[in-house]
């Protein structure tokens, strides 16, 4: 297959009912008419047996800082990422807001995190989001439009060849049995997870060390220097790993976009063809024997000892590998424009969202050579029966779930 512009499966948000309830209460009781952007956080859920996406929960309204928290269960496979909630007072304000400016401002935050190297320590910063919304608390109707800013290099991202299953993609050119490489990679990912209380980071690398694959956090990889990484790449000993919400066999998910820009800028791999493992973990449960009934006391004691450390390894059999040419961004990096520091960040998005007197607001915070994409798309049926994916918000009517009067009516 000829090299082609890489196409990514768009991200989708999965807002929980509790998120809407928390959003409505925060708007009514705390924010009131103040419609500045509020900090939020969410989890990027990988494709586990079904499509993943951005999971917004009641606790999402608050500062991102959950990286340090010990995660369990599905959360161990779902990295956290920061974002903003932009709750407009009226639908008209939401309609008139400059969407390109909001997206551009959020993308500029991603760019600043990449250029400054912050994304190396907290890869979740690469999956920043914005949720533009309006909450009608009389009817319990919400208009919700999430955006997932992706940095788009001028020349796009070029894919080399077809996407391959993880086993074939990881073993290509190595002369090693695919199943062996897959198992090695799976163990390396499990070892990284075991070291991290929060579970999987959004992105990391797999590097071949002493003939075996090992997982390295981004900061560790960057500290090795571009020359070392390029040498590994030349011997097929380097793979970028990204937690992937896409369930498609031929297409990577949205999270890979900013990770590839990061690889160009922070890892110095611009112009190189980099294999990307789109990680869609298949949780691999421990094979546990039931308690030995001949010695129930010993069995229960052993079980109690293990209970604090549940096994949470992953299998990679559902993941894919795509080979992508990293964008050359050296010139763009030199022209980096940073966001204002500190508390001004939260207000920055809102300021950009409001058009100025001439009805325009600029995207100037993104350097020349980069643009942004990422407003959530919905499948919309045209009159001729065909379906198109259009950037547009969704309306969520939760009257039956949140309105006390309707709840009483439907109870039983």
């Amino acid at each position, binding site marked *: 297959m000829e090299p082609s512009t890489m196409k990514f499966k768009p991200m989708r948000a999965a807002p929980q009912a509790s998120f809407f309830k928390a959003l409505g209460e925060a708007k009514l009781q705390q924010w009131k008419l103040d419609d500045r952007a509020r900090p939020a956080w969410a989890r990027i859920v990988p494709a586990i047996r079904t499509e993943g996406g951005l999971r917004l929960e009641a606790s999402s309204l608050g500062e991102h800082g959950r990286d340090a928290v010990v995660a369990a269960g599905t959360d161990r496979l779902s990295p956290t990422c920061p974002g903003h909630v932009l709750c407009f007072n009226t639908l008209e304000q939401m309609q008139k807001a400059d969407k390109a400016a909001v997206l551009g401002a959020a993308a500029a935050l991603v760019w600043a995190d990449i250029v400054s190297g912050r994304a190396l320590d907290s890869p979740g910063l690469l999956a920043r989001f914005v949720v533009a919304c309006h909450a009608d608390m009389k009817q319990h109707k919400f208009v919700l439009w999430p955006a997932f800013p992706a940095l788009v290099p001028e020349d796009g991202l070029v894919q080399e060849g077809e996407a391959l299953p993880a086993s074939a993609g990881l073993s290509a050119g190595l002369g090693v049995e695919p199943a062996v490489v897959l198992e090695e990679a799976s163990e390396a990912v499990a070892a990284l997870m075991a070291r991290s209380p929060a579970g999987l980071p959004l992105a990391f690398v797999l590097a071949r060390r002493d003939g075996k694959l090992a997982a390295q956090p981004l900061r560790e990889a960057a500290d090795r220097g571009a020359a070392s990484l390029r040498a590994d790449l030349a011997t097929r000993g380097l793979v970028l790993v990204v937690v992937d919400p896409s369930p498609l066999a031929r297409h990577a998910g949205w999270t890979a976009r900013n990770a590839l820009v990061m690889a160009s800028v922070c890892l110095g791999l611009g112009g190189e063809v980099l294999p990307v493992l789109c990680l869609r973990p298949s949780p691999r449960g421990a094979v546990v024997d039931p308690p030995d009934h001949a010695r129930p006391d010993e069995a229960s004691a052993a079980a109690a000892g293990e209970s604090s450390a549940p096994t949470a390894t992953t299998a990679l059999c559902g993941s894919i590998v795509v080979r992508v040419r990293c964008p050359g961004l050296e010139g763009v990096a030199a022209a980096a424009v940073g966001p204002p520091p500190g508390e001004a960040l939260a207000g920055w998005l809102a300021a950009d969202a409001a058009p100025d007197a001439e009805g325009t607001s600029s995207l100037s915070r993104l350097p020349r050579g980069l643009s942004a994409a990422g407003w959530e798309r919905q499948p919309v049926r045209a009159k001729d029966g065909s379906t*198109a*994916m259009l950037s547009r918000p969704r309306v969520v009517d939760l009257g039956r779930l949140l309105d006390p009067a309707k709840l009483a009516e439907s109870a039983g």
Partner: protein
Amino acid sequence: MAHTHIASRLFHDVVGMFTPVLTSSRFVDEGVLTPEEFVAAGDALIRVSPLWQWEAGEPESRQPFFPADKQYLLLKGVPCSQRVSSLESSFRKGGVCESTDEDGWLRADTGEPEAAASILVSGGEAAGGGLSSFVRDDYEPIQSLEEIPSHTSADDEAGAAAEVGATAGGRAQGDVGGDAAAAGDDAEDDDEYVDLDGFGGEEADEGTLGAAASAGSHGAGSAGGTHPSAAASRARAFEDDEAFERRRTYDVSLVYDKAYRTPRVFLMGHGEDGTPLLPEQVMEDVVTDYANKTVTAEAHFHLPSAPVQASIHPCRHAAAMTRIVASLLEAGATREEVAGRVELYLLYFLKFIQSVVPTIEYDSTGEVAVRGAE
């Protein structure tokens, strides 16, 4: 109806208030759990199926007899591929190949409602069939999703576009009986509430799967709006982006019910578009005999301020578990051996709960051991 329901919930709460916490094990005799046994069974479940996690819930609703961080168990994002009604109609047509495996357990993917109901009533018989002596995890590779044919379009190719319309409505893909039309109505309702095309923000981006099609068909984008064949690109977008089955998902909670001294299931569903399901939509995933009877909309015990969830009433749980215990004893296990298996309570429990919600694919534990029954 509402008053009956409120009175029932009030009665339950009062009973729970005056029911003493169980301190000695009655698993073998009554099929119930002490709080300590519930925690041990939860830990065992997590060891077998690590996607389950303990949750603390809201602080004011904590039960003092549980550790603060182990109040209830939660499994997030469980896929649910089809509605129970489609299973039931398949069964009526005789289209279901097998409802139970060789050991008598209901299979989630092929279950038939009548057999499901019979397992809840006579769960003990199902457990006595010599299950293998270990528990295993068994997931399918995710890449096969793209190849899963849509169950509604499989027998009607002309309906493909209408089915995508159902996805667009985001409500009822896979429902039996005019679901595409209903979803279309939902989309129209949304458009009546607000002009969704009036928000702007359409962007041309070659890297977005399906973006060229959207810009081409509506002319909203700039660079992407000049595709030579808008119809062809739309078809490609559909092929690439929508040909996999988008599923409902559920968050499944296992809560200890102090009044019944058994686990209790709460279900919070999300539609194919990721937005929360209404109670009546959740009932589409409950076997008809149980919907609005055994399964009702309730406030979650540990999330009282959250929206209501569907809950499976625990009144028959202990009886079903007692039958499983009886079958173990009949198979030759001693009382001590069976008592030693209380840690596996939740594994057995999830098996027979599957009969109420056969299409919610939460059970990744494969077969449950009944060693000694051979």
